[in-house]
C-alpha cells in the first residue's frame, strides 16, 4: 500500500510539474493578448485556467498521497509550514512553499471578482516564483530527481519557461505595442507633462511658453515620439 501511495505521490508530482510548466507558458500567451493557431484568445484564457486547475489537483493528490505514506515522513504541519520537515528539510520546504503559493494563487484567481483586480494581479506574479521553486523541490527532494530521464524532462520544461519569459520581456510582446502610447503608471498618475511635443501646435506666434506644472510629483513622464503615430 505504501508502495502504491509513494508511486502515486511521485507520479502526481511529475504531472504537477509538467502541468505548471504548461500553465506558465499559457499564462504568458494569455498576457500577450494574442491567439494561438486554432485557439482564439478566450480559448487561450480558458485552457490556461483549466490546465492550472489540473496542476492544482495533481499537486493536491501528490501532497495527500505522501501525507499517508509513512516513508515520506510528512506531517500535516509540513504541508503548510516550510523547512521543518524530517526528510531533507530544505528541499521539502521548497515543496511546502510551492504549495502555499499555489493555494494563494488559486484562491485569488477563483475569487478574482471579490478580492479585486489589484490583489489578484500582485498575487498572480507569484507564479514566477512558484515554478522555479517547484522545479528545485522536484530535483532536490524527488526520488528520481537526479535520474537522467527526469533531468531531461526538467530540461525541456525549463527551456519552455525560459523561452516564454524571454518573449515576455521582449518589445512587441503585446500585439499592439508598436501602435499604442504608454499608459500612466501608478507613479506618474496625475502628473501632466508640460513639455509634451503636441503642446507646440501651429500657433501663430511660434512655440508656446513652457509653464512648469505645479503638481510635479516625481519625474515628468517620458516624451512621446511623434513619429510613431504617422501613417
Amino acid at each position, binding site marked *: 500500500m505504501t508502495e502504491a501511495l509513494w508511486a502515486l505521490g511521485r507520479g502526481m508530482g511529475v504531472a504537477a510539474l509538467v502541468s505548471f510548466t504548461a500553465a506558465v507558458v499559457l499564462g504568458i500567451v494569455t498576457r500577450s493578448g494574442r491567439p494561438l493557431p486554432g485557439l482564439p484568445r478566450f480559448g487561450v484564457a480558458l485552457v490556461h485556467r483549466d490546465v492550472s486547475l489540473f496542476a492544482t489537483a495533481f499537486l493536491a493528490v501528490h501532497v495527500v498521497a505522501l501525507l499517508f505514506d509513512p516513508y515520506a515522513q510528512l506531517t500535516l504541519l509540513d504541508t503548510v509550514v516550510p523547512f521543518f520537515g524530517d526528510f531533507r528539510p530544505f528541499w521539502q520546504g521548497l515543496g511546502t512553499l510551492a504549495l502555499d503559493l499555489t493555494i494563494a494563487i488559486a484562491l485569488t484567481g477563483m475569487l478574482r471578482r471579490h478580492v479585486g483586480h489589484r490583489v489578484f494581479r500582485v498575487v498572480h506574479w507569484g507564479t514566477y516564483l512558484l515554478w522555479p521553486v517547484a522545479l528545485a523541490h522536484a530535483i532536490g527532494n524527488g526520488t528520481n530527481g537526479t535520474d537522467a530521464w527526469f533531468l531531461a524532462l526538467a530540461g525541456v520544461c525549463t527551456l519552455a519557461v525560459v523561452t516564454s519569459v524571454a518573449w515576455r520581456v521582449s518589445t512587441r510582446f503585446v500585439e499592439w505595442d508598436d*501602435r*499604442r*502610447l*504608454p*499608459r*500612466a503608471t501608478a507613479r506618474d*498618475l*496625475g502628473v*501632466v*507633462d*508640460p513639455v*509634451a511635443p*503636441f*503642446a*507646440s*501646435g*501651429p*500657433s*501663430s*506666434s*511660434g*512655440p*508656446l*511658453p513652457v*509653464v512648469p*506644472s*505645479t*503638481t510635479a510629483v516625481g519625474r515628468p*513622464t517620458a516624451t*512621446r515620439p*511623434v513619429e510613431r*503615430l*504617422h501613417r
Partner: protein
Amino acid sequence: MTTLAPPSVPSSETDRRLGPQGVRRLFAAADASFAAHLDTFGPLPRGQAGPDLVAELQRAGLDGRGGAHFATWRKLSAARAEHQVRRGPIGLGRGRAVVIANGAEGEPLSRKDAALLALAPHLVIDGLLLAAATVGASRAVLYATAPLLPGVRSALRERTDARDVTLVEAPDTFLSGEASAVVAAVEGRPAVPADRVVRLTASGVDGRPTLVQNVETLAQLALLARYGAGWFRSVGAAAEPGTRLVTVSGGDGRSPLESARTPGGAGRVLEVTGTMSLRRIVEATGIDPARLRAVLVGGFHGAWVPPEAFDLPFTRDALEPWGAVPGAGIVWALADDRCGLAAAADITAYLAGQSARQCGPCLNGLPRLADVLGRLARGDRATWLPGEVTRLAGLVTGRGSCHHPDGTARLVFSSLQVFADDVRQHLEGRCLAGVSSTSTGPGESR
C-alpha cells in the same frame, strides 16, 4: 422663508434685508473681509438649511455653475435622501455625507472661481456650510489650487463657524476639477477621474454620500438662502434666472493657450445674466465684436459661435444649435486675423497632453487627433485630413471613464463646422486669416 419683492426702481445699492439689486450680486461686498461680508449680507441664515432650502432652490431654478448645468436642488435632495436615517444636528454633525466646494477650475481660460475665492470667499463658505447642514454632512472640504489656499485659509480663520472646514489642494491640471477626480484627491489619491457606476450622491468619498458643487453655485446658494427664490429670479431670463460669472479673454493676437498662461492676459471676470447677448458681454471687456471671426463658448470642451449668433441671449436654448452651453461661463474671442483651425489645433494639442492616460481610446486617440488636425491647420494639403479628423473625433467619443474625449471631440466637430470654409481654403493652400505658421508663409503649402 420670507420672500421680499425687489423695489420697483432697481439700484446698485445693497440693502442687507432686500439683497443686492441689479446684477452685481456676488461681488456686492466692499472687500473680501468677513466684516464687509456681514455688513453687506448679514449673518449666515443657518435656520434656512434643510428641506426648506431644497424647495427654495427648486423654485429658484439654480443650476450648477461648474459646467454641467445640473439642477442644484436635485443634487442636494439626492444627497439628503441617502442618509435620512442618520441625520445629525444642523451644522457639521454626525451625518455620513461629505460636501466638497470645487474651486479647482481646471479650464485654463476660466478665472471666475479664483476671483470668487479671492474676493468673496465668505459667500462660498456660507454656501458650503448651508449645503453641509442641509445634507447632514459631517465633513466639509474646500478644494482649490495652491495659490488660492492661503486666502481661503485666512477667510476661514476670520470665522468661528467654519473651524471644521478642511482644505485640499487641487493640482494645476485640466482634469483636476472633474467630480470623481475631486473625490480621489480628497481621499488622498492622484486627482484623476475614476470609473463610476454609482452616483457620487450615493457613494463618493470613502463610500459616503458626496456632494460636489462648484464654488460659484455655493455662493449663489448662500445668497438664495438669505433672499429667496423671488429675489434670485428678479434678474435674468425666465428659463435661466439669476446671474452667472463669465471669464472673457482673447480678441487679440494671442492663441487660446497664451491667453490662459499670460498673467493678466486671461481677461476679465464679469457677472452677467441670461438676457445679455454675447455681443454685449464681449463689448463690456473692450473687445470689438465686429473684428471677431468667432467666439469660443464653454472653454476648451466648448463650441464656436459665429458672428451671426452674437445677438442671441446667453442661454442654453439660444446656444444649443451651435452645440454650446453657457456652462462655466468661459468666453474666448477669436480675432478675424487669426486662423480658427490653428486655434482649434492648439487647444486639441493641449487637451491631448492633459489626458490622464488611464483609458486607451483617449490616451491614444487624442494625440493622433491633435496630430492630424495640426497638419490641417499648418497647411498640409492632403485631402484625407478632414475625413480623418472627423473619424478620430467620432472614434473617441463616449469611450473613456470621463468626458475628456467627448469634450475634445465636441470642440473638434464644432471647429470643422464653423470653420468649414477655412478647411476648404487650407486644402487649397490658402488661409482665410492670412496668418503664417512658423514654417510656411501665408498661402504657401508644404
